[in-house]
């Protein structure tokens, strides 16, 4: 079991659901050692994702995780968490999971949590901080680009 497959203790999902969830998230956004970034199944990221799932969507996600488990078992005889990345991706794509509503819900939450993780932000050469209060620098740009526009006659209409 890798780090990202460790159990995340939550009050909202069962232990078995959490295991499938971690694997599923790592399937959707896998870790990348060359970029030194975790997958979305990283424990710290999963913890934020689980906290972000609204109560109303929890059942939808739980049912979706059951479905993933059932489909995998039916096709390979394995549990989803027992498959390697390639096998999990094969399962994800062959069953069209990306089109399922629970993946759309989960995927949106995962994106929000993943791309605000400090490790991910740093890999994108971003400072892992809020915009305020430091703000950002923006270059002025080349204002001489306006010269041809300045030379144009007015383009608004006169009113009789």
């Amino acid at each position, binding site marked *: 079991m890798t780090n990202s497959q460790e159990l995340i203790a939550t009050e909202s999902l069962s232990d078995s659901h959490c295991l499938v969830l971690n694997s599923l998230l790592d399937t959707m956004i896998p870790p990348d050692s060359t970029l030194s970034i975790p997958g979305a199944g990283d424990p710290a990221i999963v913890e934020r994702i689980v906290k972000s799932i609204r109560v109303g969507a929890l059942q939808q996600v739980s049912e979706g995780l059951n479905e993933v488990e059932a489909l995998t078992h039916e096709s390979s005889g394995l549990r989803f968490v027992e498959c390697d990345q390639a096998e999990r991706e094969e399962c994800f794509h062959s069953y069209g999971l990306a089109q399922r509503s629970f993946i759309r819900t989960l995927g949106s939450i995962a994106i929000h949590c993943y791309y605000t993780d400090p490790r991910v932000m740093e890999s994108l050469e971003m400072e892992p901080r*809020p915009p305020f209060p430091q703000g950002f620098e923006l270059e002025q740009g080349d204002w001489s680009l306006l010269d041809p526009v300045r030379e*144009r006659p007015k383009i*608004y209409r006169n009113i009789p």
Partner: protein
Amino acid sequence: MSEDIVDVLIVGAGASGAAVAWSLADTKMRIVCLEQGGWTNPSDYPSTGVDWENRHWGSFGIDPNQRGRETDYPINGSNSPIAVANFNAVGGSTILYAGHFPRFHPSDFRVKSLDGVADDWPIDYEILEPYYDENDRMMGVSGLEGDPAYPPKPQIMPPLPLGKSGQTLAKGFNSLGWHWWPSDTAIATEDYDGRGKCINLGGCYTGCAQGAKASSDITYWPHAIRAGVELRTHCRVREVTVDDNDFATGVTYFDENGVERHQRAEVVILACNGVGTPRLLLNSTSPRFPNGLANRSGLVGKNLMFHPYALIVGVFPDELDGYKGPGVCIWSQEFYETDESRGYLRGFTFECTRGRGVVGTALTGLGYGHIPWGSGHHAAYRKLHNRIAGMSAICEDFPEEHNTVTLDPDLKDSNGIPCPKIDYTVSENSEKMLQFAIERATEVLKASGATDILTECPIAHGGWHLMGTARMGTDPERSVVNEWGRCHDVKNMFVVDGSTFVTSAGVNPTRTIQALALYVADSMKKRLTNLFD
């Protein structure tokens, strides 16, 4: 419970309520404003957190139905392809607007005369011009003099930087010989009136923690309150009451504790914008106004205009500004005025946007199939990171009576007040204009170096501009308010918000809404001795 009579009662503390309150304050009349929302605390704005993009979809979201704050009221938008966007607070929707701040053009007030469509306004650019100037000073407008798309207007602060995105897009416009200009913005580029200058937080549409963006809670309201205006927050008005002589007597409202009260007033001013104002009027029925107050024309709630928007963005090979800086950048009005050879009447503005945050980039990539789930995710994401820029086309919408705000028979807010229902269709003229805009935007984005083009049309959550539902005019049978904002049917009641718009122009309305509010206030002050004649 009834309270002491006040001289002027304003309903709504947003863009127009703030402006009219400030302008009237110098009369020394007793002025009270009731606002259903509260004050926002800039330290709560999303840009104070790393997860600012996520929070934009929560308590600072633009959709009142999703946001669901206690201060919001639900809106039934099931029969409209465009959802209403608003915010209920001191400052109103200026809390969340982007700060894109164009004026109308002279032609926008004369579309019937010039193009044979819709109606002319009973006022013109020349009448509003001094109020535009006054509003520009109060809000603090940044921009550059000399735009050939406009009559001369004063520059108060320098424009926002072009940045990499603006520069890239400007080169594209230049290569086609098309107009562009740095956008006028309600964003301070210098310290202004106690507000700090813009420090490029990005996410202006989630609230400006820096205070550089001119939301009316930090521009007009501090001045109005110092001048003696009383602002009561968390007070939701249920109806305007009238007497047997068709004069407004005040309003019935629920205070912050949910207690029903009646505030008497000599003059009532509505500043709830294009959905809130007709909702309040339609909820204010009485034997003399069985179809809603000031609605003898039958036009209250009709002629709703939104501005259909198309979003057109490109993917660029090099990094642009991305998440840094205000979304507002440059605009183009190359296709603003009517050219019948295009197959439609009137026109649109291209509002260029610098880029988007990391979350927005990833969701855009996934939504358009440019980023997969799985092993190709990271490489695909990195091809989009800080590389998306483009524009939205804001198209002039025409007044059509079948586009309406009515009262939903079932939907109620937390005080039990009936809520609005929107019925709206995008017109054939708008459809043609949107299509033309997408084709031209694609052309200029490719000329700027974009490889892939992504579009959304109309922008489904783009109902930011709410206009036309209590229109202005000289004929009481064809309009709700007269040429200076007074209701034809109720001579001590005024409307100062976007609902008075006769036509929509092809630009954002807030600068004109506020100029109109100042103009109405000035008209009232000039007629104080015979205001109700």
